């Protein structure tokens, strides 16, 4: 492990070392200030975009494939339909499959306890009560903030070599993918310098989010604009049309949510306090195990 050189400017020792029976504990600077700041702005934007996006979806809770809507044949829809008990049930359809999703999708309780016909429930949308106009305002404001923050992140990552040094897949990363899968399955905690670097699966997940999901979200979002379509016609043709773009926008949102759930689970698994601190103050505690025969 000591054969891998440490990148001094990237992981500078920010505090003193402490030695106990498990080895030597060092506090390092895990994430620099601009990165920490942009990370939390990004989270704020994503939450606002998610909630307001679901509000916008609720205005017409159905997705289609192609340039126009095929109202009788949606790819995905949440509807309200009378059940055998005579009450309104929330039904979610995906292609030809139907699921009873009462109280979550299709039909759900309002804050005042009333059951109403709604795509996504009140607790998932911004604002809670139905308002397409306000949902749009939230969405477009935070879309701009998110894009500007993302552009800053890209520029900073290039200029500071964060992208080249920490995120880019190196040859040894590609080679160690199988080993990394095994380590993940065995719940192996990295120690030493290894703990201060992204593992290959982590790198691939981050790279996919930054260079695939985020651009897709922006492009499919913009190509729902009839004004922008006068410029993005080629892109709409590529993805199959405006309604396809809207469907892909929704799928991208779902993948962002999936990524975030896994991301948070990994933080909890890796040590939530240490990980959170590394994204708030930047300080991160790393254990360097004592090698046999070496004196503390």
């Amino acid at each position, binding site marked *: 492990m000591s054969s891998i050189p440490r990148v001094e400017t990237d992981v500078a020792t920010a505090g003193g070392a402490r030695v106990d029976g498990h080895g030597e504990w060092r506090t390092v600077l895990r994430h620099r200030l601009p990165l920490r700041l942009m990370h939390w702005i990004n989270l704020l934007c994503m939450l606002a975009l998610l909630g307001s996006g679901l509000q916008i979806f609720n205005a017409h809770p159905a997705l289609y494939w192609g340039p126009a809507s095929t109202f009788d044949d949606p790819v995905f829809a949440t509807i309200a339909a009378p059940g055998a008990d005579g009450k309104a049930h929330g039904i979610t359809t995906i292609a030809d499959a139907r699921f009873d999703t009462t109280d979550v999708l299709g039909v759900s309780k309002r804050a005042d306890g009333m059951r109403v016909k709604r795509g996504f429930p009140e607790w998932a949308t911004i604002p809670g009560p139905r308002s397409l106009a306000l949902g749009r305002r*939230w969405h*477009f404001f935070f879309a701009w903030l998110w894009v500007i923050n993302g552009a800053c992140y890209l520029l900073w990552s290039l200029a500071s070599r964060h992208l080249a040094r920490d995120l880019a897949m190196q040859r040894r990363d590609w080679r160690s993918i199988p080993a990394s899968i095994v380590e993940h399955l065995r719940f192996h905690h990295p120690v030493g310098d290894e703990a201060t670097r992204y593992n290959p699966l982590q790198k691939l997940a981050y790279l996919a989010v930054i260079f695939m999901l985020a651009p897709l979200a922006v492009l499919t979002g913009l190509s729902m604009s009839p*004004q922008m379509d*006068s410029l993005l016609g080629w892109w709409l043709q590529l993805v199959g049309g405006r309604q396809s773009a809207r469907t892909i926008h929704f799928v991208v949102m779902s993948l962002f949510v999936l990524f975030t759930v896994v991301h948070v689970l990994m933080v909890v698994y890796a040590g939530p306090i240490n990980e959170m601190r590394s994204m708030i103050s930047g300080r991160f505690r790393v254990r360097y195990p004592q090698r046999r025969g070496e004196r503390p």
Partner: protein
Amino acid sequence: MTDRSRDATFATSRRRLLRAAIAGAGVGLLAGCDRLSSSARFVGVLGVAEPLSMRVQRGLTGDRLAAEYPESMITPVFRPNGSTSPQTPEYLALKADGFRGFRLQVAGLVERPLELSLDALRSLPTRTQVTRHDCVEGWSVIGKWSGVPLSHLLDLARLKPGARYVVFHCFDDIAGDGSRYYESVDLLDAYHPQTIVAHSLNGSPVPVANGAPVRLRIERKLGYKQPKYVRLIEVVNGYGAFGGGRGGYWEDQGYDWYGGI
């Protein structure tokens, strides 16, 4: 109590606390969003995105045309929305007469106000376009529209100096309070080649549900910016004096005036 059971109790209570904290934070976050949404100041801050989107998107797209489609892609039923059967007396009277008494007016800051019957409109230069209609709700339909380019009508009427916006006054009372639907665009959109005063949909006179006898097609806008049942086209210097002052019926309900995304 053994150490282990104390640890277990501690762990459960900690887990319960954590769960409550997360749930509390979630509820607090959403309640906060709702409180922010009812603050006029905050909603105003969110609104800064609108002129930004408008300027950037217009800068990028210039006067490019909206996509036009082959006739084979026309949606069987052009889904109507908003008003679909106006009940105002003046409209019902015209409808009963097959719109023979209808006169489209062009007035305001013009040298020569116009009054045009449907026959007169049909005898003017016509543009036909198969375009996609995008509702602000998210759905789209494709239809074939024919009509007179608005630029032609404005040129016939000759704009006076100071003309900046075009306000469309309609027959329908969508609010049900005696007011009438209205909309507005600036001259950039008014003079766009695909902006037409449409008198036919899919080769037939525009059906009542879709805006008979004439409606606007402003192809790079969402549906609410393309008024149906148009009675008067008024050229103005500003739109603040009409309705709620925000340039359109839906704008007065909080929707953006740009309406291009």
